[in-house]
């Protein structure tokens, strides 16, 4: 996927310490990075810290960006490394009480209950994965990145990305409740 028009130029301006360009870049990436970090970290109290740390590194290092990869790949790679470092400081898993508040409820009332039920099951299933596996799942499913770009971000071979995704999908399918399988087949039957 090509970089959005102007994104490279924006990063160049950030490299020249253009604060307005940096704010624009921040607003462009805040939501995506927050989503990615929330998935990888599973620690609500760390998300803001790592997001800020990531963007401060972008601010300081933008002048060193040579354009070998897309700006998004470069920025997500920074965020991924920061997230793994932050995770290392918080090795013990714990319940993320705030995660439920981040679920966007289905506006259709008749499906809302099932939506929450499946969403909660998916959240718990994701907690069973390692941060490395969660990163690959999030970058594939939510951010829609190609596996080669994901390999650049997480710094591993392409085959490793495919393997991580394969095992992550298997675990997710197993962890999802019976309702999930019923829903899939009912959709297929319909």
């Amino acid at each position, binding site marked *: 996927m090509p970089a959005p028009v102007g994104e490279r130029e924006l990063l160049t301006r950030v490299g020249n310490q253009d604060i307005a360009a940096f*704010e624009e870049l921040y607003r462009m990436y805040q939501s995506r990075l927050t989503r990615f970090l929330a998935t990888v970290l599973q620690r609500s109290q760390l998300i803001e810290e790592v997001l800020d740390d990531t963007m401060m590194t972008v601010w300081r290092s933008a002048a060193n960006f040579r354009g070998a990869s897309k700006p998004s790949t470069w920025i997500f790679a920074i965020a991924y490394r920061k997230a793994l470092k932050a995770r290392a400081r918080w090795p013990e898993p714990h319940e993320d009480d705030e995660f439920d508040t981040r*679920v966007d409820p289905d506006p259709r009332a008749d499906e809302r209950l099932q939506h929450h039920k499946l969403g909660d099951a998916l959240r718990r299933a994701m907690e069973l994965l390692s941060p490395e596996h969660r990163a690959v799942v999030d970058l594939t499913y939510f951010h829609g990145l190609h596996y080669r770009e994901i390999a650049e971000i997480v710094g591993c071979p392409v085959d490793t990305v*495919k393997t991580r995704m*394969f095992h992550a999908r298997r675990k997710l399918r197993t962890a999802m409740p019976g309702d999930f399988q019923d829903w899939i*087949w009912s959709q297929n039957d319909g």
Partner: protein
Amino acid sequence: MADPINPAQPHDEAEELLPWYATGRLEAVQRERVEAHLAKCADCQAQLATERRLIEQFRAFSPEVESGWNRLAGKLAQERPKPIRRRTSFKGFADGIWAVFSQPAVAALATAQLAFLVLASGTLLWLSQPTYRTLGSGSAPASANVIVMFRADSTDRQVRGALGTANASIVGGPTSSGAYLVHVEPRRRQLALAKLQASGDVQLAQPIDGASEQ
């Protein structure tokens, strides 16, 4: 460039690529090969349905995004060069002074100067001690144990003569009746009284505290 599907293991390779097929991220050649396999593999069709449902569920997660720009802008402001600000508070001034004096070279010089100041201050203090005694300083005067009334026409010289003979000294007075409070050595008070009473310049000499000679 599309990664080739291993023709010897088309199912494994297609199964591996299903997530990216579902998100539409495969190149045309890969997509066509996966579709060719899907057409004849019920298991991969089921997995694709699961993939699509997972993606839908996964994208329904919407991490709450706070307006973090202000927070980051605050951090940025701390990092950018700050204008020099004049300290206005005493604490700020004291901290600044301490910062200067806590530097090693400055601290050594300041220590020497401080030692000199302490020594000089001690010397000045010692020199400033008074060599005279004020009315309020020193030990309390001896208590009066005799009251004396001199004749009205007695001169100062006669008074001093009478007191000297009795080895007495005035410690108070004159009272409203013109008497003086006098102290004599207690052991010799009787003798002192006798000498005072024998003096022609003394009208009255009496013990006043009732204390007896020891």
